């Protein structure tokens, strides 16, 4: 299967309409496609625990039982963003349900039934705000019609609230008591559905606690590793230490001698290129429990052919990449004539920026349970961001039809892009087949850090030309990093248009001469996407450089950027790009690149953080702004020195324009967490390779910030907006990184040209 890079390619708008089909005939058709679905069609009757419960299910996301249970399907994966709450609450609000009594059920992987389930690229709310509202509103229309029919009143006199229909005369009836009637009604025409006015929402635009809040606090929430099945075994795998390494031979005698170890199985790896959805070559120890499997793995004796990557050094490659940026590259964007600007320069400022490989280090390491049954079907339980891809990858690996793979989605103990890839799910499936029993594969933390799909290391060189009047007249940005595409195709040596659209070729400022170039680099490991992807290194370089240019010009960096936005407009980059502009999969006419909104967040953050006063009073504050995933974010970070010289972060301010804010509490939590995530990228984390092997083993080598070093206060200032909602999972990260670097410069007097700072 062709790897899916959700944020890198345009999404088919047809996909969206498929997920909401307001006609009974189509619904039944869709419903009959579903394998093992739990929502029955309008004309079905199902037996509930109390006997004959009947169900009204106007679409795949929603059902109402005659015993008043409202069930809403969460079809996208919960990895900490709150999406399992935020989408269902949209349905509930339009429906007029009693939110405190709504039951949320996680959908299994089935895109034919539910539409796009690939939880990635910060687009869940963006894509499903409208369909979810329609799903709720359609049901509301039908319930109102049913009540009006029952009471013999005009439907306009009825409203839905707190799980009941209320007549203006005071009569009330619970949704459940209307099920019998409403089931017989025709689905209304989509054109006749009116959505509620924004001001009348009770959930949308408010702080809504996550559905799993209590379950998590009492230890009852079920993550991937928490699935138990009768007769299950646990597998721990020794994987190729170097990408492309092959097992020559192995001796499992000592492993099998360990009590509890039952079996040792070789997993055939994909070699080079490693692929995005294939397991690595390895030898698995399958045991009664995790501890036995771990000890068994330690006792394996494996002889490896380490292959062509065995001498790979990431530092050596990084220096070569840096070197390459001084020459001419492949031009990816051109405006004006940079060379002539350079020739007429008053001053040329040239700086280079290096950033390392980063691992996702989700707190829950990859894990998946598979139960391969003798009849050629397989049931999976996995913390996957992309259940349909996992389903297809498993089917391919087992040589069965994907319709025979049932993909249950658990809670994810963090995702950040790692759990989009189905390699660990495929491992579980292969091992279950070999063991003829349910097998849960468990990655250790060492496995996770050694065998991730890393955020690529990068080298960048930026030349900024100031003309004789001191104006920024030329911008030449060179970027080089192994491309995500290289994980599936070794011939991909340049970053894709999609990767460049993340904070590089979308440079939004009014500079007359721009040239953006890329250089070749090879992937010697698996490259993937990490929370905000190449925005991480691009935003770092671009915004640190702009801060430095402002300083050299002797102007305030906030004023400098505002000045370079000139008058408000929609950017198209037309005629300047050598490839496509992805715009995160959305057409520019629907989601324009609007400089007024960028200006808005810059002005807001400067005002809320008292930027000018902070500077005047000598605080070490840094500023940066970065639009990513169609959300506009400006950030001001303050740093200070702790008692033993460590960098502390007393305060962070974000100004955010994500259009309509659906669940404002979860928007804030994403920014609070995003600041902390980004602080680790700035301060502590890096993955390096020597002799082809990752050198960091656990959290002592790959360090994350801990509470004492984390930002102490993070203020989130939301721009009030009625624009279409856009996502907030990734956008907190990009501007924080350079804002913090610029703040550290104020504190130490040293510019940061290489991440991480402590590294």
């Amino acid at each position: 299967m062709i790897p899916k890079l959700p944020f890198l390619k345009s999404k088919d708008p047809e996909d969206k309409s498929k997920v909401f089909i307001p006609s009974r005939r189509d619904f039944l058709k869709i419903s009959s496609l579903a394998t093992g679905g739990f929502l029955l069609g309008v004309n079905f009757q199902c037996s509930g625990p109390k006997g004959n419960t009947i169900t009204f299910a106007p679409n795949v996301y929603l059902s109402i039982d005659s015993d008043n249970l409202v069930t809403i399907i969460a079809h996208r994966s919960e990895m900490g963003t709150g999406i399992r709450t935020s989408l269902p609450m949209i349905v509930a609000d339009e429906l007029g349900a009693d939110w405190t009594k709504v039951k949320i059920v996680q959908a299994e992987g089935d895109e034919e039934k539910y539409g796009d389930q690939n939880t990635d690229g910060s687009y869940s709310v963006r894509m499903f705000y409208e369909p979810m509202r329609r799903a709720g509103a359609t049901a509301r229309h039908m319930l109102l019609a049913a009540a009006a029919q029952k009471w013999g009143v005009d439907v306009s006199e009825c409203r839905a609230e707190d799980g009941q229909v209320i007549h203006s005369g005071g009569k009330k009836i619970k949704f459940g008591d209307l099920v019998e009637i409403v089931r017989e009604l025709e689905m209304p025409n989509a054109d006749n559905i009116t959505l509620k006015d924004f001001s009348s929402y009770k959930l949308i635009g408010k702080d809504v606690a996550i559905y799993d809040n209590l379950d998590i606090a009492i230890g009852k929430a079920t993550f991937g590793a928490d699935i138990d099945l009768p007769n299950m075994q646990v597998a721990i795998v020794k994987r190729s230490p170097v990408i492309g390494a092959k097992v020559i031979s192995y001796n499992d005698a000592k492993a099998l001698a360990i009590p509890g170890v039952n079996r040792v199985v070789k997993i055939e790896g994909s070699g080079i290129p490693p692929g995005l959805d294939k397991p690595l070559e390895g030898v698995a120890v399958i045991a009664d429990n995790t501890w036995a499997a771990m000890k068994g793995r330690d006792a394996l004796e494996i002889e490896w052919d380490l292959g062509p990557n065995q001498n790979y050094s990431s530092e050596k490659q990084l220096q070569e990449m840096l070197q390459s940026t001084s020459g001419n590259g492949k031009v990816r964007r051109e405006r004006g004539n940079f060379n002539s600007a350079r020739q007429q320069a008053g001053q040329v400022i040239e700086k280079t920026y290096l950033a390392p490989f980063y691992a996702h280090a989700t707190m829950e390491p990859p894990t998946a349970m598979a139960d391969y049954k003798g009849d050629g079907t397989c049931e999976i339980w996995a913390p996957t961001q992309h259940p349909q891809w996992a389903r297809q990858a498993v089917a391919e690996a087992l040589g069965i039809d994907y319709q025979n793979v049932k993909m249950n989605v658990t809670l994810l103990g963090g995702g950040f892009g790692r759990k989009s890839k189905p390699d660990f799910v495929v491992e579980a499936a292969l091992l279950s087949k070999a063991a003829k029993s349910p097998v849960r594969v468990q990655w250790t933390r060492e496995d996770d850090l050694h065998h991730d799909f890393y955020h690529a290391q990068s080298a960048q060189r930026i030349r900024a030309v100031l003309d004789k009047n001191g104006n920024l007249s030329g911008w030449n940005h060179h970027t080089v990093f192994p491309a995500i595409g290289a994980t599936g195709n070794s011939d991909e040596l340049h970053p894709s248009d999609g990767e460049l659209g993340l904070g590089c070729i979308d440079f939004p400022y009014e500079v007359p001469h721009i040239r953006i170039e890329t250089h070749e680099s090879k992937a010697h490991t698996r490259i993937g996407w990490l929370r905000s992807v190449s925005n991480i290194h691009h935003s770092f370089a671009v915004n640190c450089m702009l801060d430095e240019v402002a300083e050299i010009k002797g102007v305030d960096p906030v004023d400098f950027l505002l000045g370079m936005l000139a008058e408000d407009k929609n950017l198209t980059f037309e005629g300047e790009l050598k490839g496509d502009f992805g715009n995160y999969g959305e057409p520019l006419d629907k989601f324009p690149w609007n400089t007024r909104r960028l200006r808005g967040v810059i002005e807001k953050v400067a005002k809320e953080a008292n930027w000018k006063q902070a500077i005047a009073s000598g605080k070490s504050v840094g500023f940066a702004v970065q639009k990513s995933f169609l959300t506009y974010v400006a950030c001001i970070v303050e740093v200070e020195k702790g008692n033993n010289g460590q960098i502390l972060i007393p305060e962070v301010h974000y100004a955010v324009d994500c259009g309509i804010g659906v669940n404002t509490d979860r928007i804030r939590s994403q920014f609070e967490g995003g600041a902390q995530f980004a602080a680790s990228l700035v301060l502590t984390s890096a993955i390096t390779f020597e002799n082809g092997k990752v050198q960091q083993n656990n959290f002592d080598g790959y360090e994350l910030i801990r509470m004492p070093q984390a930002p102490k206060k993070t203020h989130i200032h939301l721009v009030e907006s009625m624009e279409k909602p856009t996502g907030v999972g990734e956008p907190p990260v990009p501007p924080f990184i350079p804002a913090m670097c610029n703040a550290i410069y104020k504190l130490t007097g040293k510019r940061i040209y290489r991440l991480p700072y402590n590294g």
Partner: protein
Amino acid sequence: MEKFTLIINGKKQQVEVEPDMPLLWVLRDILSLKGTKYGCGQALCGACTVLLDDEAIRSCTFPVSEVGSQKITTVEGLSKDANHPIQKAWVEHVVPQCGYCQTGQIMNAAALLKRNPKPSEAEIESAMAGNLCRCGTYNRIKEAILTASKSY
């Protein structure tokens, strides 16, 4: 294999396991108490934190043979009806994001308040420094501990 009698959440439990098996795996794999999580196996992240008598320990590196007669409390036994002040504060502040680290955070915070019912912010930070949260819920964890400490 050896037999051990453990007191877990006030209940006596017999297990027959290898003596070097860390308590974490006894809880998760043998007794099916899944609230205690695996994050690193090296006492570096705190996801596996449980109470041994009143003290927070990292169960991933604590061999079952060393438990002896000391009482073990896991998140499942922290309270009846989720009414431990820490749990109530957690719910009030909507602390979790993915939630995976949270049971370890909660157990560590419970031990902190037991020995220091009115911790300062700095004391909270240093007491919680062993518990990682990749999602970045540190601000709310701190606020929740401060809220809970009011009922001590």
